[in-house]
Each structure stands twice: as C-alpha cells, then as structure tokens.
C-alpha cells in the first residue's frame, strides 16, 4: 500500500512572502493599498481598486463570516483523503466586503455550518516552518 500522501505546502513568492512570514508569527496580515486603503488578497502587483503600486501589508482582525461553503466527499487535493468528508469555507473578513480567505474549518461539525456564521482566525502548525491561517466558529 502506498504511503499516505502529504498535504501540499504553500510556495511563497515575492508578493506573498510577507503574508507567510507574518503567519509564522501567528499574525494575520493582508496586502493593503497605501493610497486608497483597499485590501487585496491574494496579494497583487497593483491595487484592484485604484491600480496604485504603493502596497503594504496591514494587520486584520481575523474575524469574519462564512460567505459560502461546500462539503467535499471526493478528494480534490492529495493529503485530504483521510479527512473525507471535509468542508471548505470562504470567509468574508469584516474589514471589507468580498475580502475572502479560504479555510477547511478543521474539526467543524458539518451540520452546523451556515452562510453568515461567524468565524475567527487561528493558526494551524504544519511542521516547524509553516503556520496556516485557519478559521473556527465563534
């Protein structure tokens, strides 16, 4: 029998490195436009709203609501086979409409998940150098 596959590890790039560095320190940050204040996630070369190139990372509250979700019964990513069925949620952070992050809401009770349900960030350790911003019901 094949060994269980590992979950994929995020590969930071020049735009996203500060996001992952902050996560390792258990801080949730999002790229923000220094000109118009708009949050952009994932980080972009230019601001989605005003096209400014003056972008920096700013801390966010980590609070939000479940915008939508799906319950996965078939693995779409290697490493999640043992967790089926698992949930994927899209979190809308309270800082801005349609500022989204994705989580798999570990340990959630599937039948209690609702659109609009409140969630908050926590950090899942996956090895010594990786912390993932996850969410849990409040």
């Amino acid at each position, binding site marked *: 029998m094949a060994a269980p*596959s*590992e*979950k*994929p*590890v*995020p*590969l*930071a*790039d020049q735009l*996203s490195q500060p996001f992952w560095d902050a996560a390792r320190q258990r801080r949730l940050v999002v790229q923000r436009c220094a000109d118009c204040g708009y949050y*952009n*996630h*994932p980080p*972009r070369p230019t601001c*989605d709203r005003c096209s400014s190139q003056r972008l920096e990372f700013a801390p966010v509250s980590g609070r939000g609501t479940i*915008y*939508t*979700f*799906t*319950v*996965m*019964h*078939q*693995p*779409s*990513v*290697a*490493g*999640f086979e043992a*967790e089926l*069925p*698992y949930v*994927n949620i*899209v979190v809308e952070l309270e800082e801005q409409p*349609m500022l*989204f*992050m*994705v*989580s*798999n809401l570990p340990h959630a009770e599937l039948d209690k998940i609702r*659109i609009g349900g409140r969630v908050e960030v926590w950090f899942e350790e*996956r090895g010594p150098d990786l912390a*993932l911003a*996850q969410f849990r019901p409040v």
Partner: protein
Amino acid sequence: MWHGKGKTAIVGIGYSELVRQSKRPLGLLALDACREAIADAGLSPRQIDGLATYPEAPFLGAGTRDGVDIVSVAWIINHLALAPDVRWYAQIETGMIAAPVIEGAHALMAGACDYVLIWRALHQPRSYGAFSAARAAGDAQFLAPFGCVGVIQSHAMAWRRYMHQYGATREHLGTFVVNSRRNANLNPRAFFYTKPMTRDDYFAARPIAEPFCLFDCDVPVEGCVALVMTSAERARDLRRPPAYIAGHGQNTVGRRSLLFYTLDDYVINGQSLAGKLWSSAGLGPADMDAAQLYDGFSPSTLYWLEAAGFCKRGEAYAFIQDGRIALEGELPVNTFGGSLSEGRLHGMGHIAEAVFQVTGRAERRQVPGAAAVCAIDGSPMMRGSGIVVTRDP
C-alpha cells in the same frame, strides 16, 4: 451588427467515440473525428488549408505529450494528408472552443485560407482532478493547503450562494439535469444515450462537493469532435446544408474576487460575452429557437440563461420549470444532453448541436423549423466564447 454576419458557415461535423476510458491514444480519436468532419462536408483532407484548436488539457497537472494528452495543430499536420501548404492555423488557449471558430471565421473572411478544420480533443485519465503537487504556487498557495484547489469547489460554493440568495433548491436544479438526460436519450452519440434518469435517480446520486451530486458534474469522456468551416459562397456547393455564423462574442474575465469565483463574477463576465454576441448577430434571446448553454456543472447553464438575457437575474431556477426548456417547450435548452449527459467536450458538443438544429439534422431531437440557435461555451465566471448559427445567411 458584425459585417461578417452570414459570410462563413460550418459545413461538416465529425465525432469520435465518446467513452469513459479509451484504449486508443487521443490522437487517433482526433483523426477519427477530423476525417469524419471532412467527409461529412464532402471534402477531401487535401482541401483543408486552415487549422485551429483549443488544445489545453482539461485538468491541473495533466501531461503534455502530443497525440496522447493533447492534440496540437502540429500533430494533425503530421498525421493527416492535408493541403500541401496549410496556409493558416491558430491554437487558442483563451475562450474555449468557440474562440477558434470565431478566429476561423475571421481567417476565412480575410482570405487567409479556404477550408478550416477545427477540433477539440479531451483526454481524461482516472486520476482526473486530484491536485498532487507537493508545493502549491501562485493562487494555489492560498487554496491547496486547505484541500480547496478544484474548479468544482468554486462552482459548488457559487451555487450554494445562489441557493441562499434566491431560494433555489436541489429540486429546482434536478429539473434541468433530468431534462438534459431525456434529450441525451435521443442522441446516439451521447455517453448516456441508453441510460434514462428519473428525479429519484438524481436525488439518490452520491454527493461529490455539496450541494453537487455526481449528476451535477459533466461526464469526463475521452474523445474528439471536429468541424469544418468555409465561406458562405463555397458552402453552397458542398454536401450538407450550411450553418451560417451570424454573430459571436467572448467574455473579458473581469472578477470581483481573485481567490474564488463569486456569483457576481458570472454576471460581469457573462453579460460581457452576451452583449457582444447579440449585437454582432443583430439578434436577441427572443430570436433563438433553442439554446445550447455550457454545463460543465449544472448551474452554469442557469447562469447563462440569466447573463444572456433569457430571463432576469435570480430567476433561471424558476424559468426552467414546467417544461419550458424541454424539447417541446418554448426555449429548448441543451437539446443533445449537454456536457452532463453527452459528455465533457468543452463546448464542442454545444456547437455541433446548434449546427444540427439549424440544418435540420437533429433527427429525433429536431426543434421544428429551427432557424437560429446560440452555442455558448465556458462558465460565465471564467473564460467563455459563443456563437449564433442560422439556417439562412
């Protein structure tokens, strides 16, 4: 209105076998479909001097071996005895398969070639869909570590949102899926030709990505569909009645969120395509005798009904009830069974059926007197392209 309206036509269609797993390499299936399309037009391969395809493999991490995983222009040139000098070709990776048809029309009108062969070949090995890279780069770095990189999740979550916003249920969606199967049962090329589906079958199907069950997902077949295009003038001398290209449109991929496709994205993108489609054809949704609307996942067709103006936003789930989209209804939709029941051909099946309908070749599925039919490919949230074909130039 587009100055090219009615100046080019689709004049031949060919299908390979459509099976879940073929024992033959994809390139051979593509040759079957291409030869059949050329013969259907009453031409010989030596007359084909233009080629276009949308060659991309249909899933993340697919192989790129030509003739096995994909079928490129070069592969067809090397394996079919075409005109000694192919004068024009294009491989188009944006906009799905109507995009090569649109560029084929432009090439014919420009005099770049006389006969264009277009194909879409799909290889779907059993490992389809599972992201298996150890490291996730690009946008996947924010998705794959959470088990969430599939296109299916985006679609399932957008549909969940639609249900929440408008009050749609699986009961509503089931009407569409069962109607598609009923049409496929009249289509001998369809993967599910011999398999009927009841509403009970739909509700009993296993969940894949809730709220989607198995039958909300298109069936991943291996195979190829090809078509031949030429100028309206040349078309009149050929074997089959021509399906004239009346208009076309492509979407421009504007997105609200860059992490996942929202419900609003379908309106922004779908309307950008539909506006161009209708204005170029000088026709509108009310002029369509049938609509072939992409259904990679079942709700995509509902979004297209809204984005293309067949009904208002948030109303498609109600619009499709009571037989309205059935073969004998006021707007027959996906009269061949769609990708859900004919097979995943990334829109080529939709184009082929539009051609069959306006040329009176749809056999038991024929919509009486069909004179104008649209075929729109892709999901309105992502890339897409569409054409209107007509019986008369």
